[in-house]
């Protein structure tokens, strides 16, 4: 099994999609309903792409593929995204 890292490790690729730091955004998992910052998710990377899984129930939250001048994101396991409009500490 490939070793995972956490959501903060994909702040770079996500910056191609979002104008804010997406790792601080909270997503709701379609599998278990947990709402957590993306930075707390588990990230599995391979040559083929990146899979983001819920750290509570392992459901696939998102997939990311980068190739050449294209990048693609699927958000199949996220039912809602919440962003904080003011900086705040946890």
């Amino acid at each position, binding site marked *: 099994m490939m070793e995972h890292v956490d959501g*903060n490790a994909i702040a770079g690729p996500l910056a191609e999609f979002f104008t804010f730091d997406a790792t601080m955004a909270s997503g709701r998992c379609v599998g278990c309903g947990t709402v957590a910052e993306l930075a707390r998710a588990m990230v599995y990377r391979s040559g083929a792409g990146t899979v983001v899984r819920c750290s509570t129930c392992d459901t696939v939250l998102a997939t990311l593929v980068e190739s050449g001048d294209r990048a693609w994101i699927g958000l199949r396991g996220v039912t809602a995204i919440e962003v904080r409009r003011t900086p705040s500490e946890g």
Partner: protein
Amino acid sequence: MSDAPTAQAVAPSAAPLAVPRSGWHVATVAATHRETPNATRIELDVPGWPGNAAGQHLDVRLTAPDGYQATRSYSIASSGSSTRVVLAVDKLPDGEVSPYLVDDVRAGDMLEVHGPLGAFFVWAPAADTGDHRPVQLIAGGSGVVPLYAMAHAHADASDPTPFRLLYSVRTPDDVYFDDEFATLVDAAAPLQLDVVYTRRAPEGWATAPGRIMREALEAAVFPASERPRVFVCGSTGFVERVADWLVELGHDPRSIRTERYGGA
């Protein structure tokens, strides 16, 4: 990947780099410095760098002459508004990128970097955040890099928040920022440093070398009753072991922030 390139193959080409997309910067290596027998500190000059918070990272992208690219994340040891950005990289002997950064990069070389990245694993002075809880830092190996940035920012701000750093390293030779930590421990901002040696301890050290255990962890961190904020960084195995124990010891999972570097 069937034809995995060697570290040499991903060395940046001498050809001019394309104009970077937003967030990407062309960095010039200003200086390199052997940090430990296995790691190098790399100081980059990054024109246009907007500054960074303590604990953030950047992505380094290397491009081979044939166009193959490899990107890896590295924590930033420095913080503040400076365009001088400091990294410290540990060499994985069979790695694709780190042997090149540790052994081959020289002053004057150019690298592409993307950042600053990550707003989650950061610390800012209590004066800015209003958060006065004590801060527990826990590092394994190169995982000390972002935590050093936090301890340094804490000292620079003369921040009164109590800080403790528990640092697990293989041997006394493997300590990153050794001299700098000695200075930080004496600074006005309160910092206590506890080092655990996993392979070889200094002469006369009270505890035998070995992996950190739950009891040793409990003894060296702020107790859960003080509701510390906790930052844990290092290899995935280290971070998960420590985070699980912290939760067992009663720490609130919401107050624990982790950064997994991957690997064993």
